[in-house]
């Protein structure tokens, strides 16, 4: 009678103060959906391991959160995913890091825990292991979202000293003698010929806060 589930959906991203009612509604919907999915598992007698995996998968499949489908971009324009899971009963644990092709990294972590003698696998080796164990493999472009891509461009622009948001802000200083760096380095993301990347859904209307993930 004590079944309980607790979730988190990130930190340092958008706050209530700077989100629209529609954005807040969208976040609450997915968070509630994640809770209900995990609760359903627990109510039916499922294990806590089953519950946390199912719950995290909901959030991984949503473009709103920095995990799975909504993952941020690295400097090289890749979406590199990390995940871990631990069983409190046995102290078994599994984790993956730097993977780019496994749709649900949390399931990969659980597979490492349950179907290998190891605790952590990284990169292509972890992906190969996941593939051999029958996990769903996707093209790296599945993880592409326009909002996250734009965040990367902003971050790089900031690194180069040209923050797009600040370019529209009045300054006290005189114009520099040399032209400001107004163009950020463009990172290319592999896309299928003829348009949007495979698995591309409608771009989220959400943008990251100051912490860039």
């Amino acid at each position, binding site marked *: *009678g*004590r*079944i*309980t*589930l*607790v*979730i*988190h*959906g990130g*930190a*340092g*991203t958008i*706050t*209530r103060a700077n989100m629209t009612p529609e954005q*807040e509604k969208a*976040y*609450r919907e997915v*968070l509630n959906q*994640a*809770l209900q999915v*995990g*609760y359903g598992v*627990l109510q039916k007698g*499922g294990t*806590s*391991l089953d519950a*946390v995996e199912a*719950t*995290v998968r909901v*959030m991984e499949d949503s473009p709103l*959160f*920095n*995990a*799975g489908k909504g*993952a*941020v*971009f*690295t400097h*090289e324009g890749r979406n*590199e*995913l*990390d995940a*871990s*899971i*631990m*069983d*409190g009963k046995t102290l078994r*644990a599994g*984790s993956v*890091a730097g993977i780019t092709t496994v749709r649900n*990294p*949390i399931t990969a972590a659980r597979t490492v825990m349950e179907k290998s003698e190891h605790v*952590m696998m*990284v990169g292509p080796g972890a992906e190969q292991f996941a593939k051999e164990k029958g996990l769903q493999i996707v093209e790296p472009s599945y993880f592409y979202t326009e909002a*996250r891509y734009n*965040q990367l461009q902003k*971050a790089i622009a900031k*690194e180069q000293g040209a923050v797009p948001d600040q370019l529209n802000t009045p300054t006290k200083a005189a114009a520099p003698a040399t032209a400001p760096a107004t163009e950020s380095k463009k990172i290319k993301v592999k896309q299928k010929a003829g348009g949007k990347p495979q698995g591309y859904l409608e771009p989220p209307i959400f943008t990251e*806060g100051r912490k860039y*993930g």
Partner: protein
Amino acid sequence: TVGAVALDQYGNLAAATSTGGMTNKRYGRVGDAPIIGAGTYADNQSCAISCTGWGEYFIRATVARDIAARMEYGKQPLQQAAQATIDKVAQLGGDGGLIGLDRQGNITMPFNSEGMYRGYIKANGQSEVLIYK
């Protein structure tokens, strides 16, 4: 970063964390999420923990295991242990938050940064989603 901790009807705890890392990261940077004992930990004798925030600080403070150790060795209650550890992260200069759950079904969700989305659901179906601030 997203995560979940759960207690099932058999009294077993579990924790899970998943992340895309940090925008514009380089050099194969790995944060705390996949590091057992830093971002994720579960032990039926103490608690289940999942963390989110500035990973390097959570690694240095071995946050998830630190909370469990406070409970295990210091006999601290979950909430006190979690708050003490998140305070330690802040002292180091890091920010973020965590969720925790013990075997009695007590929950904690301390954080020291903005935009922490949290939620819980209890045995009777009572649930709440919180977005700060």
